[in-house]
């Protein structure tokens, strides 16, 4: 489904290279986790994949179902089924959640020759989706993320994911700022959305999320590269020994540059 090959990216118009050769392959039905220290480039990777204009791909490619998407705009990528749950969801005063989601849903439907939903049909459709993350329907008529608590913002991202039903989702630290109850709700929601036709890449610092959403693969990102991949046990190892130990081990093995 997604194949990232030797991806290099820098900040547009500046000489700051952030991604320095990322390789990642994600198949339908898989759940991946990316862990890594602050500033290693995890969010940047998710933004580059979603088409943020702030970054420029200087080398490598991003293939989505075989098509190179590096030149596509963010909305065109969303039409193909890409979704990013933001680490810091943006507040947009004056536009309600419902307005955004209806516009988004119908734009994506149109791009894929699927039927659009009229306001009444859409109302039924999203009301149903509210259950996925146990949100009240007053949420729909509030301005996007405006005045939401940290936890509500994260929930809202997953709610949007449920509504737009993407093929591939990057969840950037969706677990940060959630208390244990909210974490359970959000994880349940993600598990309900996950199926064998879609795929999820979670970015997180904590193993606790992975206890609720079981990843098939865990990757470690450091200094702009995925330096090690493994199964769930890699997350446990990181939790126990930290990134420094991993880095030393890799240097000893001559794997790191």
């Amino acid at each position: 489904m997604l194949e990232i090959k030797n991806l290099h990216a820098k900040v547009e118009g500046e000489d700051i290279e952030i991604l320095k050769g990322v390789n990642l392959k994600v198949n339908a039905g898989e759940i991946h986790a990316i862990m890594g220290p602050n500033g290693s480039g995890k969010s940047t990777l998710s933004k580059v994949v979603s088409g943020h204009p702030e970054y420029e791909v200087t080398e490598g490619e991003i293939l989505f179902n075989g098509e190179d998407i590096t030149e596509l705009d963010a909305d065109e990528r969303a039409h193909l089924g890409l979704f990013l749950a933001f680490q810091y969801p943006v507040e947009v005063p004056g536009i309600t959640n419902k307005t955004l989601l209806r516009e988004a849903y119908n734009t994506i439907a149109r791009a894929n020759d699927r039927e659009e939903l009229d306001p009444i049909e859409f109302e039924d459709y999203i009301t149903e989706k509210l259950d996925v993350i146990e949100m009240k329907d007053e949420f729909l008529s509030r301005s996007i993320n405006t005045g939401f608590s940290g936890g509500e913002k994260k929930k809202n991202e997953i709610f949007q994911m449920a509504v737009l039903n993407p093929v591939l989702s990057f969840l950037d630290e969706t677990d940060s700022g959630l208390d244990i109850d909210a974490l359970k709700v959000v994880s349940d929601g993600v598990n309900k959305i996950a199926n064998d036709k879609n795929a999820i890449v979670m970015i997180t610092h904590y193993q606790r999320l992975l206890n609720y959403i079981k990843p098939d693969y865990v990757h470690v990102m450091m200094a702009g590269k995925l330096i090690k991949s493994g199964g769930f046990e890699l997350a446990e190892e990181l939790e126990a020994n930290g990134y420094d130990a991993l880095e030393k081990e890799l240097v000893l093995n001559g794997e790191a540059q």
Partner: protein
Amino acid sequence: MSEVIQRDTMLSYITGSVESSAESVAIRAINERGREDLENTPFPTRKDEDWRFVDLKSITKSQFCKLEEANAADVGDISDHYLPEAMNCRLVFVNGVYSEELSSVEDLPNNVIVGNLAANADNNSVKEHLGTITNYDDDVFAPFNDAAFTDGAFIYVPEETVVRTPIHILNVFTDAEKAFYATPRLLYVGEMFSKSTIIEEHIGLADNQYLNVPVTEFKMFTGSNVHHARIQRDSKKASHISRPIAILDKNAEYHSYTICLGAKLFRNDPRVIQNAEEVNFTVDGLVLIDGDQIADTHSIMDHRFAHAGSHQLHKVVVNDNAHSVFNGKIFVAKDAQKIDSFQENRNLLLSENGKVNTKPQLEIFADDVLCSHGATIGQLQDEEVFYLQSRGLTEQKSRELLVYAFALESVESMEVESVEKLLLNEVIEYTNRDEK
């Protein structure tokens, strides 16, 4: 002053003279006064502080003739511009001239008057208040209207009377062979504890050049209440110079909302004057301009007595080479304690060449007052655009929604549904215009 500079007058730029053709003695007296003021007041230049940012060449370079000499086109069918809520409560003025045929006033509460000034010239309220409320020193535009108007709109709401239907004052301007001037006039008299909603509209039906100089006067007696929406959709070649003023007695409420969409040059000097204690008023504005448009608002909120609550939210969106000027004066007189005044000017710049000048001007001589003011100039946030775009919305749609959201608050204060819809469409059209 060391040097006296002889400057041309308004009249010399426009037509040379403005003859009074008003039938009513009362109106002729105001015409006379206006002409005197005009002859004694030099035309402003950029050296005048109040006109620093505005190039009046578009007025001084063109000759504006009387309507009769302009060979103006027929008005045609303008029923699209009628408001469904005000179907039987509408006064229409075509190029400043009252049209009885297009106006429709029915089913008003007892003793309410919605009509033209010329027909009501003998009304006591007209005689008493017409021309007495305008208060623009050293100005040439209010006197120009004074000198030239022969008719206008008159609204009278008696004591304890509530007019539930919005009253639509529709000024339309047609195409013409020559550039002409028009001097629309509106006198509103709200008796004690009366209440109404006024929608004052200016619409250019074609793309021609004209000079629109309206004066509106609101006399608000004790406890009276008005919601006054002003929608300026003049032709993009027109100049519109407005002088709306309200004077408020005790417990009166006057809430005005000016929407600026049209005109090449828009200059608006709203003034609200407190005439007794305990009043409430609003002087909000929404400006959406692009191309080479200039919109300049010079407002005065004049607190002269204690216990006033006043509010001004002036929102501006600028695109292309357009230029917005805002100068918001808040006066608080020496004994006017317990004033709670709020002023905010928020500007959204959509282009690199757009310009915004903003200046709050607070002159406060009382000590127990709460006055806050602020101005912001910002652009659309890239992060907001990306957020919406990542959800599948095109960049254009994302920008449109963000501008829409910015303007929404002001639009929602219209209180008349069809007007809100109309304005939201205008906002969408505005944001789509830069999709070149």
